[in-house]
């Protein structure tokens, strides 16, 4: 099996519902591509923009770890566990759906769009209790650094997830190089470029490109442009 998969930004699935403009790196909704079902435990990577005052009404999930990362604007969350919260750039939200949860996600701002990544992971344990959490991170800590934003350990940095997965975000100066060590043997990394141009293990990537790498224990990273931003998703390679 190939050790890498490349998902160029322009090849993603796309659905424009007017109020919601969404790009799918993996099969989702009416976008079905059997070659793009998952990367290990990573099942969904949606790049969503929601119009002012609009959003996803209350709807259910079960047995899925749902991570939201705001890129701009304010996203208002409400669920049947009693949580009401607003997340914005620098925050990370996790919904561990477990046996089932209803939630809504809406643009808090009436005039401006909200853009965010919606990421779903298969859990490593089914039918657990549903759980909501969010953290606020200092985004200056990700300057020329892979800042951990998610891990399987409740006592570690970022939100904790019911899976042996680690997410890191970084924003880099042009020419900056780094080496990322995978957190667990057997995991792979799916890199998603938020801004700019980077090179990962010899592969040049541009804005919103995705690149999955397996059978490695580290990867080499170079920022080719100023203010290059990358999300690394270190996930088990389950099938």
């Amino acid at each position, binding site marked *: 099996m190939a050790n890498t998969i490349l998902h160029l930004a322009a090849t993603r699935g796309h659905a424009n519902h007017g109020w919601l403009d969404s790009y799918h790196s993996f*099969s*989702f*909704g*009416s976008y*079905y591509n*059997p070659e793009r*079902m998952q990367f290990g435990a990573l*099942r*969904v990577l*949606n790049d969503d923009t929601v119009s002012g005052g609009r959003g996803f009404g209350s*709807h*259910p*999930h*079960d*047995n*899925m770890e749902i991570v939201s990362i705001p890129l701009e604007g304010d996203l208002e969350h409400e669920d049947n566990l009693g949580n009401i919260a607003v997340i914005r750039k620098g925050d990370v939200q996790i919904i561990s*759906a*477990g*046996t*089932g949860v*209803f939630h809504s996600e809406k643009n808090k701002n009436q005039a401006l769009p909200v853009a965010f990544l919606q990421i*779903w992971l*298969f859990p490593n344990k*089914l*039918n657990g209790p549903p759980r909501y959490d969010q953290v606020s991170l200092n985004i200056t800590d990700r300057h020329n650094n892979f800042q951990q934003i998610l891990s399987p350990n409740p006592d570690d940095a970022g939100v904790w997830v019911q899976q042996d997965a680690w997410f890191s975000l970084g924003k880099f100066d042009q020419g900056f190089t780094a080496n990322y060590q995978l957190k667990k043997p057997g995991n792979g990394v799916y890199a998603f470029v938020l801004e700019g141009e980077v090179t990962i293990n010899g592969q040049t990537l541009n804005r919103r490109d995705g690149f999955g790498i397996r059978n490695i224990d580290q990867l080499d990273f170079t920022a080719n442009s100023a203010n290059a931003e990358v999300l690394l998703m270190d996930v088990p390679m389950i099938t």
Partner: protein
Amino acid sequence: MHHLNILAIHRDKKILATVLRLINTNGQWNGIGAHSDEEAIELFHQQPVGIVLFCAGIDPENEQKLKAVFNTQNPPPIFLQHYGGGSGLLSAEIYEALAKQGH
């Protein structure tokens, strides 16, 4: 038109209703739903079922008992564990299951 009957089993009635609504947005699929094992068996015997969707909250022992009953159909249905109930994954999961069966 031939419809594919999809039996969804979910303990939560609200989530089950959403799952059925999503299934029925496809004109070639007919979603039928049960929240108890007894209701699922009763519905199963009323029509040929192509796919059984096991959703959250069904323990493995009950799932095995249901599969034993459903496997008496010839041909047996496709069994599918549905993750992320009521989600954008449902259609892809059904398409994947059908493709694996050569449909």
